[in-house]
Each structure stands twice: as C-alpha cells, then as structure tokens.
C-alpha cells in the first residue's frame, strides 16, 4: 500500500516546526474556515460524522465526547495531552516537536466547538525540546492572531499555555493530569464524574491526545466523508504507528487504520534483522496483550485487535523475535508498572510489586509451579478492582503474556532459569 501521509506530511520539511512553513502548507486555513463558516454545533456534528476515535489509547469517539460538553456559557477548558509515556510510543513527541501548529490548530477548533476559553498543553517533563517548540509555537500563534482575543475577527477568545509534567507516567491518565494541573499529586480520580462534566477545578474539561487533535484541521478542510473513507468502517482516518523492537527500520509510519500488521512490518519496516521469525508482537504499547506469530495477518484497527483479545492502544508496535524470552518481557513490563503505579489502590500497588518479585524469582531460577497460579491470582485481584484503567492494563500486559506463553514460564520453572540466557 502506498499512502500519502496526512499527519506527518510536513514533518520532513526543513523548519517544519515554524509557523511560516505551516502557513505556506495550508496551515490555519481550516481554522479560518471553521470560525467563518461553521457554528460550534456544526463542528461537533462534523467530527461525529468523521467517526474519528481518540488516539490516546482508549479509542473513544471524539465527536461523542465533544457532545458531552455542556452547551452553556460557563467556564470550560481543553487539555492537550502530550504526556506520552507508554513504552513503545513516540509519535506525540514527533508531532509536538516537528509540527506543533497542526496540533494547535486542531486544539483551537476543538476549543471553539465546545466553547472552551482556555487550553492547557500538558507536556511530559522529560520532553524539553517539545516544551521549547510548544512555547515558541504558541507565542507565534498569538502574534498572528490565531490565539488570544477576537481570533481572526470572529469574536471568539482563547488562551493557551504550556504546563510541564514532572516525571509520572500516570499523569497521562486524564483525571490524574487534571489533578497535576491543579498542583496536586497526579493520582487519578474516580470516574464518573467524567472530565467533560467535572474537570479542571470542577469545570467541564475536554481532554484529547495530540494525535487526535492533529486530525481535526484535515476533517474541517476536506470534510467528514473524506475522512470516514480512509480506514475501515469503524476505525476511520490515518494513524501513526510507532514500530520498535526487533525490526530493521524502527520509526513512525502513517497509514490508514486497517493496514495489515504483516504488510507494515515486512513491506514497510523491513522485517526482522537476521531473517529471524517473529515470536510475538505487542500491538498497542506496553499496556496491551501480545499477538502471536500466527496472527500477523490481522489488520490494525480498533475492532480487529479487540476481537483478538488485545487493543490498538496507542498504535505502538513492539516486535519480539523468536529468541526473545517472554518471561523477561513480562518482568520488564511488571517493573515498569510497579514503578509507575500511583499507589492509590492496593491491588495495583501491591499486585504490581508482587508480580515483579514472582517474575524475578522465575527468571533467576527460583520459580515453583505455584508461582504461575500466584500470578494469575494477582491479575484476577486487579481486574476491574482498581481506581483507574492502569490496573486492567497490567492484567492485559502481564496476564496476556502468561496466557499466551505459559509453556515458556513452565520451562523456566522446570529448568530453574532461562535456557536462552545460557
């Protein structure tokens, strides 16, 4: 499949982050049109018709979320989620550093559609380059009249500012992010209420991933029917896939949702080094269950991956070749989650740490058969019993590896360690 990139179109241009390059390449035309030709309600209908689904991991329909925002004159906020911390994911950093105006334009249109008067960009603390390019881009957008008072003569006002996170993966979760913006510990809040009802300091708040917002100007420019025509029936539009692990050409790729995993890995990413076979592919970032080698013909869209017991997640595809030790992969994931658990709920705080202990034991050759039951019990205790979706993510990741590669775990226990490491 050849596909003319939409979201990554400008990123290869010199000075792609500058407002001049953006303006020379159709930049802010969609905003001008949105403000001139459409009422906020029209834009909400347009995004609904495009069937765009959130790119931050959960795949929630964007238009429906816009529709949840109350239509009154009260204070409302928009948050641009640039906290990208899911291992395997590096698309938002690429977009934020190389084409920040595309996101800003999408954010302004979204804010106008839901009547928000202020937008926050919450950016991962480690992304210093991204922070600098956001700040410059926002200042340039103010200078050209795309932000601030009476935007392009429309009477609509919007202020936008950048907020730096401080090293906590969980702050990517929308309610944790709102707590962090309020100057609190980044602990998730219990939902409902959802941020669209009760977000930043109690006001309705629309939270979107960077990539989701980057799609908005294109939907306004070319129309929802054009957008809905890209991809599959239920997963529309282009998607940025991050390909990493055991693959020749690691990097970001943009294709319509619904491209086959095999095609992406073998035709575009160059296959596996050394001509090795693939053992597993983690399809949506470290929080998702792995696919096995017999599932490479699956198409990459929300519904196919859900049907296969996993998820599209952030579209971060991690390739594991035939020599990979799955116990090691599980241990590394567990370590990540144990480190990043905010500690609010016991099943997640204790469960992730216990999983690390058990997996380290198995890897070090101290495993006993009961360990596998113990891991399953830990997963069982977490599933559906935690404050935020991270508990379930841990179960998908670690439980998923155990379920699909149980024989490797048993082999480790029988042989008192990893045969591959020897």
């Amino acid at each position: 499949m050849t596909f003319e990139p939409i979201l990554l179109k400008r990123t290869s241009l010199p000075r792609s982050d500058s407002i001049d390059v953006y303006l020379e390449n159709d930049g802010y035309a969609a905003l001008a049109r949105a403000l001139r030709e459409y009422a906020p309600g029209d834009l909400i209908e347009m995004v609904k018709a495009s069937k765009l689904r959130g790119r931050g991991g959960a795949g929630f329909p964007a238009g429906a979320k816009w529709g949840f925002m109350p239509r009154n004159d009260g204070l409302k906020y928009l948050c641009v989620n640039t906290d990208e911390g899911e291992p395997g994911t590096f698309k938002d950093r690429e977009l934020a550093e190389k084409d920040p105006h595309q996101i800003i334009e999408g954010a302004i249109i979204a804010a106008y559609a839901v009547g928000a008067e202020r937008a926050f960009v919450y950016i991962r603390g480690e992304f210093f380059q991204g922070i600098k390019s956001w700040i410059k881009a926002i200042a340039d957008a103010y200078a050209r009249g795309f932000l601030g008072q009476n935007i392009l003569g429309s009477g609509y006002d919007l202020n936008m500012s950048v907020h730096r996170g401080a090293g906590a993966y969980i702050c990517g979760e929308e309610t944790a992010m709102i707590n962090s913006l309020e100057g609190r510990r980044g602990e998730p809040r219990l939902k409902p209420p959802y941020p669209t009802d009760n977000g930043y300091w109690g006001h309705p708040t629309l939270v979107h991933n960077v990539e989701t917002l980057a799609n908005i100007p294109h939907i306004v420019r070319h129309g929802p029917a054009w957008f809905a025509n890209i991809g599959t029936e239920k997963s529309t539009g282009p998607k940025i896939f991050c390909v990493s692990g055991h693959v020749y050409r690691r990097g970001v790729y943009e294709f319509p949702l619904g491209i086959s995993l095999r095609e992406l890995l073998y035709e575009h990413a160059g296959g596996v080094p050394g001509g090795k076979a693939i053992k597993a592919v983690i399809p949506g970032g470290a929080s998702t269950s792995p696919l096995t080698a017999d599932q490479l013909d699956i198409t990459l869209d929300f519904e196919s991956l859900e049907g296969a017991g996993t998820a599209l997640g952030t579209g971060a595809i991690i390739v594991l070749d035939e020599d990979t030790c799955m116990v090691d992969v599980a241990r590394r994931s567990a370590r990540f989650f144990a480190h990043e658990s905010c500690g609010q709920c016991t099943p997640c705080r204790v469960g992730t740490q216990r999983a690390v202990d058990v997996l380290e034991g198995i890897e070090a050759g101290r495993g006993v058969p009961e360990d596998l039951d113990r891991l399953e019990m830990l997963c069982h205790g977490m599933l559906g019993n935690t404050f935020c979706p991270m508990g379930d993510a841990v179960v998908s990741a670690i439980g998923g590896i155990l379920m699909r590669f149980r024989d490797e775990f048993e082999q480790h226990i029988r042989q008192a360690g990893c045969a591959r490491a020897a």
Partner: protein
Amino acid sequence: MEPGLEPGHYAVTDPAKRSMLLTALYMAQEQYGYLSPEAMERVARRLSMSPREVYNTATFYSMFRTEPVGRHVIQVCEGLSCHLAGGAEDLFDFLMERLGIGAGQTTGDGRFTLQMVQCLAACGSSPAMRINDTLYTNLTLGQVDTILQELEERP
C-alpha cells in the same frame, strides 16, 4: 509578557494559586539545585500552602529531587523497546565503568549522577539517553565518550 511565553503562565482569574505549584517547584529546583526543606517552605509561603502539602505533592513526581544530585544527570533508557533493539545495557555498563559509579549514584566531584529510566519516548532510536535537558539517540559508545569529555572540560 504574552500569555503562553512562559511555561505554566496563568491568568489572574485562575481559581487557585495552587495551580502554579509544579512551575514554582521547577523554579525552586533550578535555583537551589534540589528541593531542600527551605526551598519548599518558600514555595509554600508564596502559594499559601502548608509546607507539608508542598512536600507531599513534590515527592509524587520523579523529576523533583529532595536530595542534591550531580550537575549532569544522565538517564539511560532500559525500557522494553530499547532493550530489544540492544545497546542499552552496554551503554549503561560503559557509563558505570567510565564514571566509576552505579545506578542512582553521583560521582565524588558532584559532576555526574547516573540513573536508569523506563522510557524516554525514543523507542525507535535506541540506545537513548538524556543528560539534563538534552536527549541523545542512536548512540555509539564513542559518541558517549566524546559527550562526557565535553562535559568534563566545562568548569
């Protein structure tokens, strides 16, 4: 100043000064090198919060330090993608040897602190490392040596 020029710039209409907390902590950390009890007390006074609340919030975030660290904090990614692509372990071993310190330690001259981290969102270009605010990717050991030499030559 234009709104948006400063990270964390807030309108005066903001519901609570507390929203400034992370920004204030970054500023204090920059000024003092780490968040000493005195630094946190100053932040608390400025934002009309209790020092305990400030401490309680700051310690949630890994980028806020309540202990002094080296002038250059080196973080090497040991995340899954970087591990698979290879090179992260070698890089870490090289740094330990070269600096004579282990994970989480600081060199005697207070120049370097070495840390292992989970993912720097550079999974497509490992091995990846961050020194203070700069991200380095696709590193060779030779390049790392040059980077360290340059940092060592600085006063």
